[in-house]
């Protein structure tokens, strides 16, 4: 299973193994990563699973679709160039070692 490092706003790092094919959001929520709200349960509908991708990994992810682009304008912490919605990112073996930073708040 790909391992992902979540970095909280205070700098704490937590490594989680997430099943292949699951989304980053699903893995985070099941392991109780409190900084991910995911109010809509993964429907690309609410912008409360916002994460910042470590720039070194950004190019390895598929580009966001139009709906995700729109919602990234609605995040509680303003978007940056490396912003993504974690419900739209499926884990693959190539993403083993992915590092994501968590925002201060989601609502």
């Amino acid at each position, binding site marked *: 299973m790909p391992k992902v490092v979540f970095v909280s706003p205070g700098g704490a790092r937590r490594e989680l193994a997430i099943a292949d094919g*699951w989304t980053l959001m*699903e893995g985070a*929520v*099941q*392991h*109780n990563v*409190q900084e991910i709200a995911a*109010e*809509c*349960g*993964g*429907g*690309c*509908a*609410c*912008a409360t699973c916002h994460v910042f991708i470590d720039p070194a990994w950004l190019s390895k992810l598929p580009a966001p679709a139009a*709906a995700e682009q*729109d*919602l990234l*304008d*609605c995040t509680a912490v303003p978007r940056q160039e490396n912003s993504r919605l974690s419900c739209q990112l499926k884990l693959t073996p190539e993403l083993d070692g992915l590092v994501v930073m968590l925002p201060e708040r989601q609502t």
Partner: protein
Amino acid sequence: MTRHVIIGAGQAGLQIVESLRKEGFSGEIALIGDEASAPYQRPPLSKKYLLGQITAERLLFRAPEHYGRLGVELRLSTRVTAIDPAAHTVTLAEGSQLEWDRLALATGARVRKLGVPGAEDPRVHVLRGVEDAEALRQGLEQAARVVVIGGGFIGLEVAAIARKLGLEVKVVEAQSRVLPRVVAPLVSTFFHELHTGHGVRILLDQQVAALVPSADALTVQTQDGTVIPADLVVVGIGVLPNTELAEAAGLACDAGIVVDEFARTSHPHIVSAGDCTRHRNLLFAAPHRLESVQNAVDQAKVAASTMLDAPVPYAQVPWFWSDQYDVKLQMVGISTGHDSLVVRGVPGPDGFSVFYRSGDRVIAVDSINKPAEHMAARKLIAAGGQCDPERLADTSTDLKTLLQ
């Protein structure tokens, strides 16, 4: 040691537990659920799960080991048979009793049954829990002709999935339009055409009189004599709140467990949250009952605050969503009592939003394939809903700028 007991291990029950711990409660917690599964998400049951795209494991809110870490006694497949408010106990089906300092009722709702002859046939399905969904998923694999009774959210979501699976689908609705209680007629028309465009046949103003079983079909008969043969029938005609335990314990109930804005029942040490409650929300004049994720989560947080003697009143804007085919409907606010509409965009595949106004205030917004407009609408309504209708309708005006 202090012990808090929560009856009902759905979204509201789990949120109460999580909020109790988050706010620093260090006593014992027992979370009691009558289903076999650990707490799981219901919305995907009528969407991705039914389509076979995700497994039951992916529905779980938390990994199983989470409950040990939280210090929660999770009692599954366990039914509570009685509450004694004076003795501060609950009785479990196997006969044992649990004492509590504070009790929370998150008992949810159950499906309304179709009260006609033939409704007990095994080819009749409902959709509420994961076991219902699994039975329906397997049933759809064997079926060619599906009849959905009820043109509400569950019925239409199931119809969309059954069409995606290539089945012949008919929807029978008692009212004169689909989604009659929740959206404006123009939104009903959009969804009607969406489904007919995908090959669903919708029969309106049709009351089901009987389901007639035979070896090779279960035939739906309506009151005007129409007969519709089916291999499988899905009934989605609403839910009823689970109030029996509360009523037997002498708690005030009125088509729901009656709670105030602090989620308190008529007993000072018993709270209730989620689908089962008729509740006060400070944003609305009258109490109401809502079936939604938002209400389960937000009201559960209120209930936990009350259990910890630091009550925070409930004052959150409701929101809902439904997925059908490639269309996402998102709703915010309660449209009841609106006196005018503003439509932003053109009803069609590119998406649009409908603003429900009462006087000069926007009280609810339905957004179709416009998630960013939905998020802006949430802020607009939370801020009181004052907005120039001409600018609302003007798609060249960014909704977010209307809030600044």
